């Protein structure tokens, strides 16, 4: 009986949808003409109507309520030649179009379409969404890199409002939030610790990345589970026309990728991997310098297969695996320590996309993601300690996108997640700590893009959560609105509540291998933030964008690892101190997207503070976290010198990092240990308020020059990079050497100038 009722409701809804769609529509996919990969956030303008659309992350778009006649579409996207296409719209349901865009690296014979700025279709900027910064593959790969490793998170760090804790860490701190407050999605699947090499590099292989989008704040209800921001990374779908590959060697690693169509053109595949090969270098250094150095390597592999089940249904199956492995022997000959450390991510997911009707788009995702780390230290045959930590996330989510209304774009869906965490600490076979937990988190959301007036649009949304452990029920209302002052200028306002149900235990400044993720339970309440963002967007020219944004974030029930807890209690409250914080600031960004010169200038003026009342941190009072940087200026420039040479450079200036200054000196007397047994007389530096001083400002120039040529008939590229070109090392930490008297103050600086080469061959 119930099933019949449901069928009746669905049938009625579909009829209504059909009735509503009495006029013609244009729908379809925009793809890369070379590889046939779907292209996200492409602008499609219906010439002469000021109607348009923007493709979603699957490259799909719908423009409805069009009178039957012949229309001319103008399709444009950064990094591609603008294209035109004539489309005949009738009352009949049309099959999805496939519009191909030619990469701008390919020269055209035809006249290039030029469109007036006022005619340009709505794009990602011309929607209520605020604080969204898209970065395409070409930009990521053109930016100067560290150790010749193009890095996605380091590319993100060049966006105003995004800060790093130091040059040595690729973690991102967005608008005053800590790294765990950013939801990182790799092909719709969550990744928990996206770094290699102790945070020096991110886990994303830039060769595998097609597109990424950072939502710095006030993101829509479609996203949930984190209180700060969202980084969405989409990997290559694979060339649907021909098989091709790329191999590259750099100073520390080799990379390779392969992609192509499936048999019978029923889909595509893409796989990319890389591995470092520093072991021989470390061995040489070990022998030459007679020092104990570890063996270390990391690798990662991305794979993805797209199956075109029907014209309207695609199934994607993908996987990621990355691992860091370090082994070290040290100590006296008769008293050796062996240290083993490995950590990494694994994930696997499948995603089904189906166009149910001409304007109803459905997506289902089933995914599993795991982060684990294992650290052991042994002395001869005695295991001194073995720390093991794993965190798993099972996600099943679905959403429905309805594009059938001229004034509405509706989206709804659900997320069901299971969290599992296991941590133990052992000596020999004895476990001192062994915590194993799991819980479920469910949420549903709905959002609408509603064009109330030709000049005014809103995007209301809501996400409702139920977290099983502790039976927490949270409601996150969201709202965004845009007012089109004129074709070049838009005012936007957005905000809402953003809840978070997992917290990270981290020792240090960003993601590191010892991180542990702990779900909320009945001993602590979920964290949440209230955000508001005001934005003014101005497009003075077709290829020039200027954005200014002001934001305020109120962070509640934020957590920090309780360093003073050594117990084995298995409740979340025992692992954390709980506090609050705030962040506010102004950001400006001027971006040029086309031409020989591209890039952006950005500046942010920001403040963030936090406190943990009643804790050991700063006496429970307010303090600036290390990533608080008052001024942050960034210039990113890519210059196509000619067909063969490209040059890119980034220059950054920011306020120095905070550090905790020594203010007093004393003699420490431990119970039963006279100061004479210390080598330094038990001198001890007493520190003041947390981060009460700042290092000098940092500024750094990175440059990369790329030379494109052929290598035995194959396209090849030589990259010459200079990291920290004028050798201005940034300050990282201050140490006090109490073995010296007077106490020696040592400021540790980070990376010096590093010139590097890498070489790529495509086939």
């Amino acid at each position, binding site marked *: 009986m119930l099933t019949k009722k449901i069928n009746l409701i669905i049938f009625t809804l579909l009829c209504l949808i059909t009735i509503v769609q009495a006029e013609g529509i244009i729908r379809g996919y925009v793809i890369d003409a070379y590889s046939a990969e779907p292209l996200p956030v492409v602008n499609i303008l219906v010439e002469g109507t000021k109607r348009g659309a923007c493709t979603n992350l699957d490259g799909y778009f719908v423009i409805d309520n069009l009178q039957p006649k012949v229309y001319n579409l103008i399709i444009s996207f950064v990094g591609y030649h603008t294209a035109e296409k004539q489309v005949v719209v009738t009352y009949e349901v049309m099959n999805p179009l496939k519009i191909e865009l030619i990469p701008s690296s390919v020269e055209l014979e035809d006249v290039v379409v030029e469109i007036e700025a006022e005619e340009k279709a709505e794009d990602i900027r011309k929607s209520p969404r605020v604080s969204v910064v898209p970065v395409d593959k070409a930009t990521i790969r053109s930016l100067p890199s560290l150790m010749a490793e193009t890095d996605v998170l380091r590319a993100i760090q060049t966006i105003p409002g995004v800060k790093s804790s130091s040059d040595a860490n690729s973690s991102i701190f967005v608008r005053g939030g800590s790294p765990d407050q950013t939801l990182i999605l790799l092909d719709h699947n969550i990744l928990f610790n996206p770094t290699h090499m102790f945070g020096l590099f991110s886990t994303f292989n830039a060769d595998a990345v097609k597109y990424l989008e950072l939502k710095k704040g006030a993101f829509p209800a479609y996203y949930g589970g984190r209180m700060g921001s969202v980084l969405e990374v989409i990997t290559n779908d694979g060339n649907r026309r021909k098989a091709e590959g790329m191999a590259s060697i750099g100073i520390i690693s080799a990379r390779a990728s392969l992609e192509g169509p499936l048999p019978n053109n029923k889909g595509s595949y893409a796989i990319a991997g890389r591995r470092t090969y520093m072991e021989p270098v470390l061995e040489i250094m070990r022998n030459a310098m007679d020092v104990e150095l570890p063996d270390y390597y990391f690798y990662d592999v991305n794979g993805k297969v797209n199956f075109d089940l029907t014209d309207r249904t695609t199934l994607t199956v993908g996987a990621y695996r990355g691992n860091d492995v370090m082994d070290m022997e040290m100590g006296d*000959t008769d008293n050796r320590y062996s240290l083993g450390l490995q950590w990494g991510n694994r994930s696997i997911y499948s995603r089904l996309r189906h166009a149910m009707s001409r304007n109803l788009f459905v997506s289902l995702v089933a995914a599993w993601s795991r982060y684990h780390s294992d650290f052991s230290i042994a002395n001869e045959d005695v295991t001194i300690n073995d720390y093991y930590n794993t965190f798993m996330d099972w996600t099943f989510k679905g959403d429905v996108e309805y594009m059938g209304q001229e004034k509405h774009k509706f989206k709804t869906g659900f997320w069901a997640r299971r969290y599992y965490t296991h941590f133990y600490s052992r000596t020999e076979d004895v476990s001192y700590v062994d915590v194993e937990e799991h819980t479920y988190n469910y949420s549903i959301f709905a959002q609408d893009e509603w064009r109330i007036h030709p000049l005014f649009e809103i995007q209301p949304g809501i996400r409702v959560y139920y977290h099983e452990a502790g039976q927490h029920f949270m409601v996150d209302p969201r709202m965004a609105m845009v007012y089109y002052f004129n074709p070049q200028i838009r005012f936007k306002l957005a905000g809402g509540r953003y809840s978070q149900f997992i917290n990270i235990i981290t020792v240090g400044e960003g993601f590191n291998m010892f991180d542990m993720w702990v779900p909320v339970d009945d001993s602590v309440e979920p964290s949440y933030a209230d955000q508001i963002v005001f934005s003014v967007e101005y497009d003075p020219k077709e290829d020039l964008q200027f954005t200014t944004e002001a934001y305020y974030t109120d962070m509640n029930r934020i957590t920090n690892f309780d360093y003073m807890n050594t117990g084995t209690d298995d409740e979340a409250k025992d692992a954390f101190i709980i506090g609050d914080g705030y962040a506010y600031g102004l950001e400006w960004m001027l971006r040029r997207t086309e031409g020989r010169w591209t890039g952006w200038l950005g500046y942010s003026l920001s403040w963030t503070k936090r406190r943990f009342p009643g804790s050991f941190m700063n006496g429970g009072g307010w303090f600036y976290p290390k990533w608080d940087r008052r001024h942050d200026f960034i210039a990113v420039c890519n210059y196509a010198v000619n067909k063969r040479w490209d040059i890119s450079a980034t220059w950054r200036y920011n306020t120095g990092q905070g550090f905790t200054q020594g203010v007093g000196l004393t003699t420490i007397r431990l119970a039963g240990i006279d100061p004479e047994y210390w080598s330094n007389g038990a001198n001890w530096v007493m520190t003041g308020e947390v981060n009460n001083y700042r290092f000098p400002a940092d500024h750094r120039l990175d440059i990369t020059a790329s030379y494109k040529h052929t290598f035995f008939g194959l396209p090849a590229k030589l990259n010459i990079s200079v990291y920290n070109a004028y050798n201005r090392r940034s300050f990282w930490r201050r140490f006090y050497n109490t073995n010296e008297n007077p106490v020696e103050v040592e400021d540790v600086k980070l990376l010096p100038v590093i010139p590097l080469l890498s070489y790529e061959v495509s086939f």
Partner: protein
Amino acid sequence: MMNQILNIIKCGWCRLIVDTASQSAYNSYNTVIPACPESIPGVSAAQRTCGNDEVREGRCHEGTLLKYTALIIIPFLLILSGCDVNNPSEVEDYEPAPMLTAYLYNGEPVEEVYMQWTAPFEYHATAYNNAIPYNPDDYIITDAVIKIFALDNPAVDILILTHDSEVPGHYYSEDDDWLPQGKQKYGVIVDYTGPNIYEDTVTFHLESTTIVPDHYDIHIFHPYIPGGSTIIPPMPDNSLVIEPVMTRDDSSFFMYWNPAPDSGHGYIVNFITMVDSDSLVPLDPDFVIGEDEIEEDEYWRFSIEFMPEDQLQYTMGWYYFNWEGLHQITFMAVSKEYHDYMLAGMNIMQGLDVDMPGNIEGGEGIFGAACRYRMYIELERVENAPGGN
């Protein structure tokens, strides 16, 4: 902000190079060569190029070798010159604080009590002008009145400590029968009127409390112990002495314990080498006696093992032992105050932002307690042992 601007200005050498090179690049960039055709059918304005050169105002501008050479040379000049700066140290006004360090041991006379002033860091750190070596004797407090009393037992006399004239800043109990008892809460009060480090007359009052941990049994296992295992007797009356001289090739000691209620909030083991620092001989067989030298910062003669309260067993690895000779090993169940003091101290040593530990109201320092068990072993290098190389 002004400091940040000044820092950039200080980097003037770099700027000079940048400016010079930029001017060179600018001059070459404006070199004009004959125009290319105004338009090419089928080619947009954006595509209208003269080979590799850019079109401006209908004319092609040469991308000269000089321009690109300048772009390449700039980084190398900058590399050579560098642009590094040092961190100018600032300092805030620091008011020295009185610091009490006092430990009570279950069943032992009160002997470990010290009073001192903390010192301004700027006086004794190389980052500051006119820094001088730190001498703890310059900061001792000698005339404090220190009283210790049993909070839960008014029948116990208040203990007034005596200043040790031979060790300035050290206070002790002259009453050897006044012994702290397990599970008892004790308080301390310190009153002082006298000069501070600036010779100004000041008055302060400090107070604190702690609970003395109760006794418990530690079972220890090793082949050198008669019968293979024993229970370590409590201090101060007895200690366990392992007779045979040992090497790091010997098997490790294993122990477990059954904590009594109120027996503390964690366990700490002190390893002390009972050898003068100028007589130290490393156990490391790679150290060649008579040739190699011990580094100055390697003269540590103690190690500490820290264990949480729910750890009930322990394998004593040889990695705590670096020197030949007699070693004193003390197991302590410690009060919560001392446990937190040690834990915070270790966190601070790792560079974590943790407040300076302590439980002294009105000043700095620690008033803690422990219940102690002690053993002695003697170690020698492997090659010195019978059958050694």
